[in-house]
């Protein structure tokens, strides 16, 4: 119980700090929403008038406090760029980002866990050099490049999918899956390389531990050692790593969204920063912070289930 109280308090404090840092960051960087909105031809008076209306002229602490007061009630204000409520704007972008995140996470888990286990069992045997090269390559290719290559090969040459033909999952679920496979792959492939490496190392480390020798000497075969004893222990660091991966893709894959022309949270964030659309940027940063912390919890819980020793700490 105390654990949860502590964790929730930590979440709130982190959110407060994150929101404050966002405010500070926009104090420091040049230009503001009024200036970008009115463009080249505006006079100083016009800019001042708009600043006044947007409330940009109020002192920083005051702005911060009024933001908090509104945020507590779930009101994140209106986007200065789009004139609509931030909630509505973000809500519209969410399905894309969530879809991409869960899809790519599924691919990561579905591919890297079997691969990692397979490669660990083959440790030392032939073919592992080639495998190491493959994972190395997967990690080394930048996602945007991968995205462009996938589009070129599967979209333009083989016409397996039509670039830019995104359909919401609600309209055509299979169409959605078909199109999103490629962005999801672009996100997943580098992460798969990393996860496989991670799992492989973790497994190999465990396989040389004393308890493995004990298990072997009491008559377990290789298979039972791996599935019954080693895997559970080896998964703990991998779960932590995967939770970080999930947090990263849930916060919006800016690059992949650009390449595949998906209007998700990441693209909204990029556009909002360049328009100095503070309310939107703040909301996205708070969302990302929450996601990171919540996933941290989840991975905590998962690790506790996997390894009872952690529960005591």
């Amino acid at each position, binding site marked *: 119980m105390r654990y949860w109280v502590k964790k929730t308090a930590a979440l709130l404090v982190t959110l407060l700090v994150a929101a404050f840092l966002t405010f500070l960051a926009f104090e420091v*960087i*040049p*230009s503001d929403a009024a*200036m*970008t*909105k*009115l*463009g*080249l*031809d*505006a*006079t100083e008076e*016009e800019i001042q*008038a*708009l600043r*006044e*209306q947007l409330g940009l002229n109020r002192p920083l602490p005051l702005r911060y406090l009024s933001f908090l007061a509104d945020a507590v009630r779930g009101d994140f204000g209106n986007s200065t*760029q*789009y*004139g*609509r409520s931030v909630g509505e*704007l973000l809500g*519209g*972008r969410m399905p894309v980002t969530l879809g991409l995140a869960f899809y790519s996470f599924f691919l990561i888990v*579905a*591919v890297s866990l*079997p*691969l990692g286990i*397979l490669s660990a069992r083959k440790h030392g045997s032939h073919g592992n050099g080639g495998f190491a090269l493959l994972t190395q390559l997967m990690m080394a290719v930048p996602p945007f490049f991968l995205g*462009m290559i996938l*589009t*070129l090969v599967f*979209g*333009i040459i083989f*016409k*397996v*999918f*039509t*670039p*830019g*033909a995104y*359909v919401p999952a609600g309209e055509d679920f*299979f*169409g959605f*899956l*078909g*199109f999103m*496979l*490629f962005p999801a792959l672009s996100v997943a492939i580098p992460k798969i390389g990393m996860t496989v490496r991670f799992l492989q190392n973790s497994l190999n480390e465990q396989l040389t531990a004393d308890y493995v020798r004990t298990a072997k000497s009491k008559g377990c075969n290789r298979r039972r050692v791996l599935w019954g004893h080693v895997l559970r222990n080896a998964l703990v660091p991998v779960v932590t790593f995967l939770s970080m991966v999930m947090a990263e893709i849930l916060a919006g894959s800016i690059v992949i969204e*650009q*390449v595949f*022309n*998906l*209007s998700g949270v990441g*693209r*909204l964030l990029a*556009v909002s920063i*360049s*328009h*100095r659309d503070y309310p939107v940027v703040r909301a996205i940063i708070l969302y990302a912070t929450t996601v990171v912390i919540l996933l941290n919890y989840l991975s905590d819980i998962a690790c506790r289930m996997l390894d009872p020793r952690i529960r005591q700490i």
Partner: protein
Amino acid sequence: MKKHAVLVALLLSLTALCACNGGKTGKNGSDSRSAVVGITQDLDSLDPHKAVAAGTDEVLFNVFEGLVKPSVDGTLVPAVAEDVEIAPDGMSYTFTLREGVKFHNGADVTAEDVVYSIKRCAGLLSDPDPEVKVSSALSVISAVEKKNAGTVVITLKEANTELLGFLTVAIIPENYTEQSTKPVGTGPYRFVSYEPLTSFVVERFPEYYGETPYLEKVTFKICASNDAAFMELLAGTIDIFPYLTEEQASQLTDEYKLEVGASNLVQAMFLNNEFAPFTKPEVRQALCMAVDKQEILNIVAGGKGNIIGSNMFPNFGVYYNKDMETYYTYQPEKAKELLAKAGYNESNPLTFTMKVPSNYDFHVATAQVLVEQYKKIGVEVKLQLIEWPTWLTDVYRGRDYEATIVGLDAALAPSDVVRRYRSDASGNFVNYKSDAYDALFDKAKASVSNEEKITYYKQLQEMLTKDAASVYLQDPAKLVAVNKRFTGYRFYPVYVLDMASIRPEK
């Protein structure tokens, strides 16, 4: 081994899944009267009076009209107004409204709507909305009045015979509050839907007074980047894409034809005339002579585009001073001599920083060529890429820069192109100061005789060139990809994307 099989099966089934789908999400049928246009910038507002981005005006041109509107040859043609009479002294404009013009919501356009719209853009409403971009050119208006149901009179504070070029501002219904979400105008297309970062959709307006457009539906698809848009073009999801780079143009598939026009921009390396080394005219002149403009065009645009020599572009027709194009030829030796005279040589080289907005690849590429060209005469240029909002604040408003590269556009009035060089102009970010220029500019703007105007404006351009106010480079080529099933794409002397002129290829 079994696991391998499972994996392979999984991947295969996923591929198969989308393979079946590939056929279904096809392109528009060749007989469909709809088109998808790729744009690379999201709209900054749907309210035409609040939009400042050229990329937004370009799209909204299809939905809104002013009293007059630009035509292909650079003249202004009647739109919501049927006729205009400019007082001989240039102090007032009398508009006769066209009968039977309807808004997209079905209401008739009244004189009140016209008065409201002009006042809103000129900042004359008693309760102004600070988000409305007040046009500084319209600030000469002292009053807008309805004379009778079909006549509106605009009175000016001072004589100005070029105001018509700015009266292309959209006519919108009076006191309609949903303009930013459900825009209503009088153009050939009416608004259907808008989804941020996704698309802006319009459909043909059946009650349009003018010629009926062929296309029934136009989707402006907002693409994340130029590359993403080009991929979609190759895949056939986009029919028209107006921002091809030279490299992309050379890779176009058979399904598209390439249309080449002018961007109508003054691309220049603008110099801060108050930055110490640039206060000397011979330094600025040397910088003009050290530039091989043809080489720039060859490298960044495959030789396309139009070299310019002053702050105006060729589509201004009679006002454009073509002689300036060759005023400074490429003379690196002479440039070196001039620099030496100003005290710069190998032991004391001229160095400056060039701030370029990083979102404009074209300007960045131009800057890189310039840096190399200046190196040849021993001038060291430091390239600094900055974000667009930072450019606005630091370079344009703060005038805190040494040199920068950007492209400037203009309304259909010669005064709009060159007015920023008037000493007291708010847009005079180059800090050019010349009393002779100011006097001549005022004369040009107020002149009622067109011959005089032409002479004055040509002289103004000559002054800028001789004083080397900046290093004028080119009016970049505009490369447009159009699906071969369409024809009729038209280039305008202003920044618009006219969809009403698109016809099927027979």
